[in-house]
């Protein structure tokens, strides 16, 4: 087949997506502070659509020139 299929353990993003907030949780035995985990998770992921996206969009479809004209 043409598709490349990899194990989840070959990508940190894939692993973070799974093991941090899913699976069986034993409340009393979770030994890690969630704050640390969230920071790390954000680092591995990308930000969502915002002003940055719009500026890229404006440039791509030529709106910036129109506005300047």
């Amino acid at each position: 087949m043409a598709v490349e299929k990899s194990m989840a353990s070959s990508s940190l993003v894939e692993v973070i997506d799974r093991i941090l907030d899913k699976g069986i949780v034993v409340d009393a035995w979770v030994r890690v502070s969630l704050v640390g985990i969230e920071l790390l998770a954000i680092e591995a992921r990308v930000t969502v659509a915002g002003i940055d996206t719009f500026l890229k969009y404006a440039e791509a479809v030529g709106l910036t020139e129109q506005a300047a004209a």
Partner: protein
Amino acid sequence: MLEEGQYIYCIIEASEARNFGSIGIGDRGDPVTTIGFGYGGLAAVVSSTPISKCTVSKETMLAHEEVVERVMWDYTVLPVRFCTVAPSAEDIRNLLRRRYPEFKKLMREFDNKIELGLKALWKDMDAVFSEIRESEITAIGAKEAIPSFERGALGVQVEADRLKHALQERKVMEQEILLRPLRQISMNCCLNNTYGDDMIVNAAFLVDRTWEMVFDGRVDNLISEYGERIEFKYVGPAPPYSFVNIVIGD
């Protein structure tokens, strides 16, 4: 010296004791073994670890996942969340005893099931932007579709929000097309949040092992059909993390 605890990776059905090798989390090469309970044979897959310490790092997270993937070769697994450390083997046996019927039921439910992950991302955002722009012009006319830059930061924010909605709408539309053939052959499907402008699909599927190759074929079809403009990231077989979500309180 730090007190030792038992790091738990997953729960399996096994009546015999097992040693999966010196692949335990941390840098000591602790052996990964089982702590069993009961006649029906539930066991927790564990390794020794200092009880107070659980470092969140790339190495520890990958080690956790690798152990569960290794165990999956031989067993149906109920994966446990990262950094779960029991004070003692006795505590684990107590847990298995207290939750015995529930774990047994889950074992039957997940018997021979695997998780497959699929992410789909637009390759060329400029092209997607152009398509959105064209449909806006068709809908409201070129003149009105010029954003109100003159209104300054507020105007840009309004336009950015409008684009965000347009992008989301387009994602949902394409998502449906991509997911349909995969949902048909899955027991369950879990849609995760998408990250970034270009990600259209971030999904996990619960699939019977015997259907894995059929699923591969369907992903292959998607690639032949949409591969030019969409990049696919296909992952598996993975432990069924996305479908085992139970919280055990005190």
